[in-house]
């Protein structure tokens, strides 16, 4: 499997996870405050995110030396990937509450409904909540698209993979008319975390002048190593988990912020 395919899969997976979280918020805003404001807020956020990719990503590719760029984005991906993996390990081993889209939807909808009724005109609260939800969840995707895309000079491919994920999630969300709580978010987040960590480590090394055996072939090897480490860490922490005996924990995230 080539590095480009792994790159596309990593962007696609990361974008699916964030798109599901953003869609939950947009659905809550749309059903409680009106679809016009929610869709306008979402569209505005997507435009801002798209401009960010173009404004930051394109100059990075053209003006920053590739080795410096790889160290920089490798370091960013490493922090992001390790952070996602840590969270996924804690969730899978019962040390952290799993993300509950149904609960987040209900909570957001109840909070918006408390603002009072809205007519057919534009609704500021609905617009703001949808904009914030899409923008915050999308920022991590933008960072991943720019990092992965710029490091391999595949910004267009990375952006296309992110766009495809958004289209898929929105289409499925529209078809099933719900907030995709069945999506195995923790599993996807684990896989993407493994890929981001592997890419990050590889590029930090490449940028610094390390010669990985097999060049790009080292990426799948690193992915395999981190997959094994993740499985081992989950097994180790399960033996320490008070939640396992209690049947697991399912507490929704309540901060409304993009979780790394």
């Amino acid at each position, binding site marked *: 499997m080539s590095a480009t395919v792994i790159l596309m899969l990593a962007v696609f997976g990361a974008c699916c996870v964030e798109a599901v979280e953003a869609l939950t918020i947009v659905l809550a805003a749309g059903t409680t405050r009106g679809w016009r404001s929610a869709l306008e807020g979402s569209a505005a956020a997507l435009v801002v995110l798209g401009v960010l990719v173009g404004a930051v990503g394109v100059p990075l590719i053209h003006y920053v030396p590739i080795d410096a760029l790889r*160290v920089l984005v490798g*370091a*960013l991906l*490493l*922090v*992001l990937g*390790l*952070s996602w*993996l*840590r969270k996924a*390990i*804690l969730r899978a*081993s019962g*040390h*952290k*509450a799993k993300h509950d889209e149904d609960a987040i939807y209900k909570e957001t909808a109840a909070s918006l409904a408390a603002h009072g009724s809205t007519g057919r005109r534009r609704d500021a609260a609905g617009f703001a909540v949808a904009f914030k939800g899409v923008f915050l969840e999308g*920022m991590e995707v933008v*960072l991943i698209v720019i990092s992965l895309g710029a490091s391999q000079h595949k910004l267009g491919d990375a952006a296309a993979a992110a766009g495809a994920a958004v289209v898929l999630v929105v289409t499925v969300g529209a078809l099933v008319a719900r907030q995709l709580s069945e999506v195995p978010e923790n599993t996807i987040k684990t896989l993407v975390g493994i890929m981001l*960590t592997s890419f990050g*480590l590889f590029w*930090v*090394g490449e*940028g*610094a*002048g*390390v*010669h*990985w*055996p097999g060049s790009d072939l*080292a990426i799948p090897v*690193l992915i395999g*190593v*981190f997959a094994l*480490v*993740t499985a081992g*860490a989950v097994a*180790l*922490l399960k033996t*320490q*988990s*008070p*939640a396992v005996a209690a049947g697991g*924990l399912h*507490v*929704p*995230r*309540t*901060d409304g*912020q993009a*979780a*790394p």
Partner: protein
Amino acid sequence: MTAAVVRGIRAFGHFWWDFLVGDTPELFLAMVVLVGLAFALRTDRTADIVVLPLLAIVALVGSAWRGRVRPGTRHDADR
């Protein structure tokens, strides 16, 4: 106008602080050490391809271990 700019800068800084450090400063520290080691060990072909992944693994497992719920402690929903 000035207040809005200050607010914007503050929000921007807050975002990056949360993104890079947040509640896992050990991972940020590991990344800094790892980048330093990558430059320091780049001439040693064997050491770099062993030490760099090893450090990342130690940081990940150590951080997850630190984040585990211990008996008698409060379960933090989003730590």
